[in-house]
């Protein structure tokens, strides 16, 4: 009886979960600790800047709310992306992948504009505790979004060459998990940094 046994075939796992998905969940778990430490630093230093500008001097809540909405919508398009590839609808997959990446870029563009606006108002990373903790926290988050955008654009490119097919849905699911995680982190940051202020 000749059977095909592969060391890397994802068919059978002890937990029943695909190893690649388990990898992404575990990585996101460790990323929680990462953002947790950064957010804790921000909260520690909240209200303790010796000089301004202070949050109330620079924040534009309506503006950042729009930005937040854009990122939240990108999670919706991410879900549609995954749904499309799971059904094998590659055209819809490409549309929604591009849409998600585009929304991510809009978010990043909004962040970039916000950063330059803050600098113009006299807030730099070196200015005070607020500047240091704000720029490092949101900058790290933005870097995560940027990496996500690169992954999405790679998915798009690979689908054009046929390397990403319906069978590759697991990879889209992994990137989707990452993308939703980054979105949830933003919700936490938006709440703690922008909405609940000292």
């Amino acid at each position: 009886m000749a059977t095909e046994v592969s060391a890397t075939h994802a068919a059978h796992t002890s937990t029943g979960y695909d190893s690649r998905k388990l990898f992404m969940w575990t990585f996101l778990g460790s990323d929680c600790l990462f953002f947790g430490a950064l957010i804790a630093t921000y909260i520690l230093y909240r209200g303790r800047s010796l000089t301004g500008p202070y949050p109330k001097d620079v924040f534009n809540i309506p503006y950042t709310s729009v930005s937040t909405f854009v990122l939240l919508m990108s999670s919706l398009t991410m879900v549609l992306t995954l749904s499309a590839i799971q059904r094998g609808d590659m055209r819809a997959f490409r549309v929604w992948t591009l849409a998600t990446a585009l929304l991510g870029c809009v978010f990043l563009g909004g962040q970039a504009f916000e950063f330059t606006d803050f600098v113009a108002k006299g807030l730099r990373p070196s200015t005070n505790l607020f500047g240091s903790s704000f720029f490092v926290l949101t900058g790290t988050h933005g870097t995560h979004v940027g990496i996500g955008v690169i992954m999405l654009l790679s998915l798009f490119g690979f689908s054009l060459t046929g390397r990403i097919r319906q069978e590759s849905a697991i990879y889209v699911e992994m990137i989707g998990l990452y993308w939703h995680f980054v979105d949830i982190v933003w919700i936490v940051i938006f709440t703690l940094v922008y909405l609940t202020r000292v």
Partner: protein
Amino acid sequence: MATIAQPYAGTYPRPSRWEVIWEWITTVDHKKIAKLYLVTSFVFFILAGIEALIIRLQLARPDERLISAETYNELFTMHGTMMIFLVVMPLGVAFFNLLVPLQIGARDVAFPRLNALSYWIYLFGGILLTSSWLFEAAPNDGWFAYANLTEKTFTPGHNLDFYYVGLQILGISSLIGAINFFVTILNMRAPGMRIMRMPPFTWMVMVTSVLLFTALPVLAVDLILLMFDRAYATNFFNPAKGGEPILWQHLFWLFGHPEVYIMILPAFGIISEILPTFARKPLFGYPVVVLSGAAIGVMGWGVWAHHMFTVGLGAAANSAFATTTMLIAVPTGIKIFNWIATLWGGDLQMKTPLYFALGFIAMFIIGGLSGVTHGIVPADYEQHMTYYIVAHFHYVLFGGALFALFGGIYYWYPKLFGRMLDETIGKWHFWLMLIGFNLTFGPFHMLGLDGMPRRIYTYAANNGWGFWNMVSTIGAFTIALSILVFFWNVYVTSRKPADAPADPWDGRSLEWTIPSPPPEYNFARIPVVHARDPLWHQKLLRRYGRATGNDPLAQEPADEHIHMPPRSFYPIITALGLPLMGYGFIYQQDHKAFWALFAAGIIVLFLGAFGWATEPTE
């Protein structure tokens, strides 16, 4: 390209030197990667050991002027940093690599290329960190790099830049490896290999992996804050703008305490493997032993501020952490009692692995006891920043972790290399190391309680510390001699034929069911596990005539196509991007042109990653 793993008769041409080098550069085989980790960590062990010997030469006599104070700062910082991140942790990972797939009955880890990536990142990160010596900018503010001495105003030069860049890169290696082994253990166990049937070493790897991927991100953040303070004048540790230097300590020790359990839990696992085999009795209290390991992992998160008792956190905080510190001694003590009970009434086989395991128990008890005394806050006010602390952590890390690792090397050497290390030379190694170790670090207890502070490059003669310092230096060179004896053992053994049997020690776990060294695919048939210590279980069934049906652990070749993951060039390429980025970032602070090096690193990283994603894997 897939390898068709079937034995074939006849002769075949010897591989050329280039083919061999290529094979090692592109390997994704966990057993080869284990050898890479083993050899590389010993190279760093020699370097970090030489740093220690120079320290001991400087301190052997009062008012010595062998080296300057500045160089001394670099020496003790690099000795500690290298021993922790480039020696003890990677030696542990060498054993993770060798044993985890074999002990759970798998053919490799869950992500073989990521496994290779972890190694290459370790190698390049270690080279970057160590190269700081060549740039005359070795880290020099202690391995713990307390703020705000580490700010640019107080430590100009690139010493700390090498520190945070090096550790950040090394952290990535360990993080990826931890997730890899965690997924492997959860997902790739052979049929019947339930979690509570896993060998204790693999159990400890599981706990250690969780500690790694939860604690390393906290260090990563701390290093990022330091990087921004130094490179971009942020204020995280700048008191002038309201920053709190103590934030560094909190984040550092939130990582740092789980880190010491990361170093010791694999050693605990090795001891739990060696003692039953050489006492010819099962591990006493297996469920308690493995669950107390898990408890240590969890409780290790609650004790971090015991490194900060003298910083001024206040009586309430100090009391709380003193309590949690006392509590964490309990699961560790439980393990010690279970190990003693394992030996009790056993048929002791006095072989070298057992010597090192017994040495471990004795030395770790001493180190653990001094650790418990640190937990008494007023006592710690006397002990902190003295050699008494240095005694403690060397007893648990050297007398503990390193002795266990050496025991593991003697125990599993035949499995990895197909040869048994020499018993007589092994015993010489053990006794020289045990005596040298105690001569080196025993006196530190006295010196510390007599008031000798840490991190001083010399001391006046009228302190009365000269005698014990000289004894310690003699001990240090005795350790060095014992290491040479070990290398002699390795050399002598390499001249012998590789004819070790599959099961030289009458072992209990799955790695002893396959040849020494194992074939590339490990198991011809994936075993079916029916009990803890599956090999002993099967041997006993056979001895008492209860074996029914086919042997579930039999390794006659099955009529199946075994498909092993193909080799890959991309892990080493991807890894190469990181040191390029690292050097680029360190030196762009001097000349903007170095951003090109940083950018080149990013490009190499992406090229490696894209090649990786697009290469065939079947």
